[in-house]
């Protein structure tokens, strides 16, 4: 996102394809959407990125990155 110029960017630190959380978690979907909408008024110029400080694993593990890398590179 830093290399292109979208007007406003909300960063959600979740695996790609799971931006709004885990399947079936409606509360998380609403929480992220509400957070994104609340940030809108804070953008003052193009190119800014607002971080919602989401964490995929409640313990802070980033093992999902390796799982995702393996998935994206599978069956090449």
């Amino acid at each position, binding site marked *: 996102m830093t*290399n*292109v*110029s*979208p*007007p406003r960017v909300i*960063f959600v*630190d979740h*695996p*790609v*394809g*799971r*931006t*709004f*959380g*885990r*399947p*079936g*978690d*409606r509360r998380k*979907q*609403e929480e*992220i*959407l*509400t957070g*994104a*909408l*609340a940030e*809108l*008024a804070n*953008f003052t*110029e*193009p190119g800014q990125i607002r971080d919602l400080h989401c964490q995929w694993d409640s313990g802070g593990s*980033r093992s999902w*990155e390796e799982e*995702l*890398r393996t*998935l*994206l*590179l*599978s*069956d*090449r």
Partner: protein
Amino acid sequence: MALEYLPIMAQSSAPKPPRVLVSPSKPSWCPLTKPANESRVALLTSAALRLKDQPPFTPREDLSYRLVSSDPAAGDMVIDHHSRIGAVPREDPEIIFPRSALAALAAKKLVGSLSPVHVSFMGGIRSHKTVEQELAPAIARDLAKAQVDLALLVPY
């Protein structure tokens, strides 16, 4: 530190050349005219998502788009995008296209109203010029027709 997707995607698409990032030729900034709780809101997705009874997207350079009803009761959603990440979002497309959550926020008056339709198209298209000159303006016209104030794109 955010995961760097671009090197992975470059490795994934080899021997095809890596994707080129292209910025729009014109500034895309528009000032907010209303707060969210007074705005009509639409979702956009690049997941090639559609309602089950809509025509499928055709990989990979499909430049069409679908208007998807914002009513959560409008029917099951299907993801046509060819990405390998699809298994989890296919279990629950709302994790990339939170149609029900947005409707819930409208019911709670946290957003002004729902656009009658949301928009879906195919991500990963390499014909950037056609996206900018044809696809994006066509979508913008439909959003303007629906009197949308805010469009939230969830990249896929």
